């Protein structure tokens, strides 16, 4: 993880409230878990950005270090790591995800 990469990630996360680091894109997810997160976020009708980590190996490895999380997808809300697919889905089902997103949108 170079300082430049960390800075770039920091900057991107402060500029975008909801970011999903995933395999593939919003339109063409390339993994079941990434797709699940995309569908959840689509259902909640919240604006979000996606980053395709398959396109950049250094970013892929960098995000694992940055998030201290070894797998993708990785959901960030308001600059903070929220979780992977399991956590996102469980939080969606419990209503917690909607609350956290609403709070982020208002801030």
């Amino acid at each position: 993880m170079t300082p430049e990469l960390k800075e770039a990630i920091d900057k991107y996360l402060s500029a975008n409230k909801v970011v999903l680091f995933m395999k593939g894109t919003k339109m063409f997810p390339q993994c079941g878990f990434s797709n699940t997160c995309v569908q959840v976020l689509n259902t909640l009708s919240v604006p979000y950005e996606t980053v395709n980590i398959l396109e950049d190996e250094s970013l892929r490895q960098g995000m694992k270090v940055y998030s201290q999380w070894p797998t993708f997808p990785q959901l960030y809300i308001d600059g903070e790591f929220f979780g992977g697919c399991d956590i996102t889905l469980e939080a969606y089902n419990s209503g917690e995800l909607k609350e956290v997103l609403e709070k982020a949108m208002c801030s």
Partner: protein
Amino acid sequence: MCDDDPLLLPILESTKMKILKKLSAALAPVHMEVENVSFQQRQEGNTDEMSTDCCDTHFNVNLVSEEFEGRSLLKRHRLVYAVLADELQTGGVHALSLVTKTPSEVANNNQE
């Protein structure tokens, strides 16, 4: 094939066995299920080039442990990832679907 041959033991111990052993030692779960679902990923046409290298890439893990008491979902998952760090970094495991509950949560679910 001789089961006592110490040279063969590392080969015989599958990724699943390693996961079971490590989780058991670290979290003393009252209930544990580990399922290798790598084949499902290949069938669904997962285009991630790395996942075609071996058969031990995706696992479902269901754990019930006191160690999860008082920890958020995120902290629970981080705990499991820490225990299985080797498998995730160099062992070829690419994804873990985790269900992490405490014994009291399971008891409450059963009562509903």
